[in-house]
């Protein structure tokens, strides 16, 4: 359940990252449309909520919240590194 919470947070922050114009353009070669942006972001928020639920289910309220913040920071850092330093492109 803890691993699940971490993975969900990672997916959430990757979605947030992809939903920025610069990264979307680099990854897909296309402009980010408003609807795609909204899609990615709401998916991100949903994943983040699920991640919180999983974390609290795994560790209880007090520790679950602390861990959830930990997962979010790790995931944000991981997504940041992947998006900025990994030279990956799709559809190019």
């Amino acid at each position, binding site marked *: 359940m803890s691993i699940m919470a971490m993975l969900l947070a990672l997916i959430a922050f990757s979605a947030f990252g992809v939903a*920025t114009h*610069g990264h979307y353009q680099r990854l897909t070669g296309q402009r980010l449309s408003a609807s795609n942006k909204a899609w990615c972001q709401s998916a991100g928020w949903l994943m983040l909520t699920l991640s919180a639920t999983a974390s609290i289910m795994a560790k209880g309220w007090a*520790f679950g919240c*602390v861990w959830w913040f*930990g997962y979010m*920071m790790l995931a944000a*850092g991981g997504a*940041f590194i992947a*998006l*900025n330093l990994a030279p990956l492109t799709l559809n190019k």
Partner: protein
Amino acid sequence: MSKGIRQSQSTLHTWSGLLLGWLLFLVFLTGTIAFWREGLNRYMRPELARVERPLTVLDGAQRFLDRKAPDAKSWFIALPNDQVPGAQLFWQPQPKKGERAGRSGGGRGRRDNQALIGADGLPATARDTRGGEFFYRFHFDLYYMPVIWARWLVGIAAVMMLVAILTGIVTHKKIFRDFFTLRRGKGQRSWLDGHNATAVLALPFHLMITYTGVVTLMALLMPWATVANYTDQTKLLDALFPHVEAAERTGKPVPLVRLSALVRDAERRLGGPIGSLEVSQPGDAAARVTLFRSPTTLLNTRASSIVYAGTSGKPVWQSPAPGGAAATAGVMIGLHAGRFADTALRWIYFLCGVAGTLMVASGLVLWTVKRREKLPDPARPHLGFRVVERLNVAVIAGFPLGVAALFWANRLLPATMLARAQWEVHMLFIVWTAAIVLALACKPQHAWSSLFALTGVSLLLLPAFNLVGTRWNAISSLAVGDLLPLGVDASMLAFGVGYLWLARRVAHHVPQTRNFRRERPLTTEHMMQEVAA
């Protein structure tokens, strides 16, 4: 209007960050290392075996104290676990006639009143070192100065940090929108992106650690609430740390029950592992044993306790549930110190601390990067600029070299040396002083790269030295399944490689154009890109 506010916040952010930034760098760096306080206590005493059976060690501690200090006023035993080098114990002799009773009278800090019981239950002889405790204490007490001054300084720096974080959120208004942006190789822009990334990615941590850091010092910074509510100091202590007063010695000798049996019973009654215990008037009919729950399983650091009669082993008192204010403060301090954190969560704490340290460092460097382009003559900057630039080198590159020197001193100083633990610490400051001299004497670009390179090489060689010079190292640790030495050595290697990379980057950095007016910062702009990641 809005611009006016942002401008004022920006000024506040710049100056609150700069003036105490160097101190904050030291506080962040040592605080980050101090998350591994217990681990380093063990790492820096490689003679000692890992504790496998804590209660055997406790029995050994009791036997030792029975022989060594049978009529002491009190014993204090910190229970070992597999993270710590053994059971640390102190005893307080009976106060002599005319001597002031209480904590200051017995001299808890005196060296002849403490011992370390090793994994086999016998008194251990290890090299004299402060281990991870040094980083923990330096984090708020600094060194070579009265503790009270240091705490005021660190307290003010922490408040400034809070100001810098909050104004920073306003100043760098786009940080949330530009969350994932890192523009590489673009000078000031890259620095700013890096500074923002280290700040925002771990923003919950930064806010938490700074706010709770101020809370740990709140009684010092804002004593009025306690002064207004508690005229009597002892009443305040009773409210914060509920306890039973120690009884007078009756003079009737009665043997003490087995402490390890009490530990088992107390763990059941308190619902969690026991961290430490205190015996008052051991070996007497009035003996009392207080057991404290370990803060490793609680958010609140002010753990509950239970008192037993030392002669019968019957529980006589249990601490009441803490009040709202005490629980809040306890939880905040718990969050700050992360004592509840297991190894995985501690890594998250540590990485966030590294991000915080980089945030402070990049902010300091950013001050010079921003101003360099506006200098009338970049070849001859004004005095203020040169002071900041060189202090940055002295602190950001110099202090880590000092820390590396401390680890080397821990391995190399002879075990029989007088005041060995103090000399380990002196070595940090001697090497740091040398680094400061170098930073002031050389051109910043050379000073940055040579200090980074020296730090990198020292950190890389340390695990290699452990392989040949220490009984207990990465390979032996794998063999017995004890991952701590391996983990510390691997971290040293990682940081060593990082520092060498930085050194190379700075040394090979050539300004992009020869055109004087467009010359880019000479020193460190590129370092940030790696650092930000």
